[in-house]
């Protein structure tokens, strides 16, 4: 992949006619969407409609599951991340991911970040990098006096912010979040949402959430997914628009039914 970005581009990522398969089963059909730079884009929809599958296609994470394949394209600054000469590890380095369940390494808070940076070849001042990442993840004040305690000693919400600090320590451009708050209590959830508003100044965020209200509160754009292809159990994006519109006046009847709690 090219190392310099077209920094004038408004859109960081785009999919073109994207189909995603598990073996011969087509889980996601014909998705065309754009991810705008420095915005939060949410993917919502009922269970099993392919939200996480679509998200994982954004950084080739699907390939870690046997038998997955795609048709169509996923573009990152105009470059197809599935092109033959592209290294998937580098893709995941530039397009980071945070998962549903906080998964800190069984190491100290400090090492969770330092170790990650080191294996990515960081040779600068480590203390500064660790502090910077923890500050950006709004965790520094809570952990600055116990940096050498295990990351697993933190609360769930703190662990998730540690994982976000770890993800941003290697300066990705996009952060994919798969249900980042579903295992957290409401206050920890609001903290993650508030953090997303801070992070989007420097990064572009795509989030999958079951929690419609979370998409409403925290995102700028919303993609509504649903199983909708006739004769197939395959998910697709049925409506994609600014979040305010999706939650006040959606165009598609099915979106209206879903956001008003009448379907799904």
């Amino acid at each position, binding site marked *: 992949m090219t190392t310099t970005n077209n920094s004038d581009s408004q859109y960081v990522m785009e999919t073109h006619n994207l189909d995603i398969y598990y073996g011969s089963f087509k889980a996601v059909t014909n998705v065309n969407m754009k991810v705008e730079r420095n915005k939060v884009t949410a993917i919502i929809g009922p269970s099993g409609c392919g939200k996480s599958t679509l998200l994982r296609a954004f950084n080739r994470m699907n390939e870690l599951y046997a038998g997955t394949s795609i048709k169509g394209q996923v573009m990152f600054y105009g470059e197809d991340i599935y092109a033959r000469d592209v290294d998937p590890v580098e893709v995941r380095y530039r397009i980071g991911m945070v998962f549903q369940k906080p998964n800190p390494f069984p190491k100290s808070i400090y090492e969770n970040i330092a170790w990650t940076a080191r294996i990515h070849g960081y040779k600068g001042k480590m203390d500064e990098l660790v502090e910077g990442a923890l500050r950006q993840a709004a965790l520094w004040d809570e952990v600055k006096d116990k940096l050498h305690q295990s990351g697993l000693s933190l609360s769930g919400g703190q662990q998730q912010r540690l994982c976000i600090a770890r993800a941003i320590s290697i300066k990705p451009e996009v952060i994919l979040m798969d249900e980042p708050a579903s295992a957290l209590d409401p*206050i920890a959830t*609001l*903290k993650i949402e*508030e953090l997303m*508003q801070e992070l989007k100044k420097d990064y572009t965020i795509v989030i999958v959430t079951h929690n419609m*209200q979370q998409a*409403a*509160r925290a995102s700028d754009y919303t993609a509504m997914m649903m199983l909708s292809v006739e004769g197939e159990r395959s998910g697709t994006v049925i409506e994609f628009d600014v*979040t*305010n519109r999706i*939650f*006040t006046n959606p165009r598609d009847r099915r979106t209206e039914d879903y956001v008003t709690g009448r379907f799904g």
Partner: protein
Amino acid sequence: MVRKTFESEIQQVKDDVLILGSMVEKALLDSVEALKKRDIKAAEKLFVEDREINKKRFEIENHLMVLIATQQPMAHDLRLLASSMEIISELERMGDYAKGISNINIRMGDTPLLKPLIDVPRMAQKGVDMLHRSLTAFVNEDVETAKALPVEDDEVDALYNQIYRELMTFVIADPKTIERANWLLWVAHNLERFADRVTNICERTVFIVTGKMTEIKSTDDEFWEQRTHG
């Protein structure tokens, strides 16, 4: 603060309500000034400018809808957003009184004023002053001021009655002045209604802070109660 983004949106709503309020204040004072000078051009301009007030109201209303839909406001936040919806609707109608006065000015055409305006500008000034303080109380969520302000409506009512009596003396002395007196009476009526609506704004502020929907009584209400209950 956990919901910094939402807090700043709420601040934005309050700022916008203040902006709408100052547009209405200016419109009312300008409409009376234009009448005083019999400046029909200025009145026509105000008539058109009322659309800006309506536009601003819709803009705030839309913002409130989006916040209610996307931010799931609860308790105090919900009361604040719902009350803001009510307040901007009051403000828009108060703007219509300025438009009403401009309308009278335009309809009067070449007809001179029946008498120089003295109490009418006083009423306008008092109404605007009350509106200004009611919105400051709203923004600061100041219940004491919100509860105390409506009493001052009595001063506006007293001016209205004074204008009414004075105009009647003209009409009695010379019935040909009926039309010109009537115009001024309508102007005063617009101003009287303007000040009445300040009370509604104050009631909303009390509701935001206390959660209680109460009518703040004016002397008018007491008069009515005495009549109906002896």
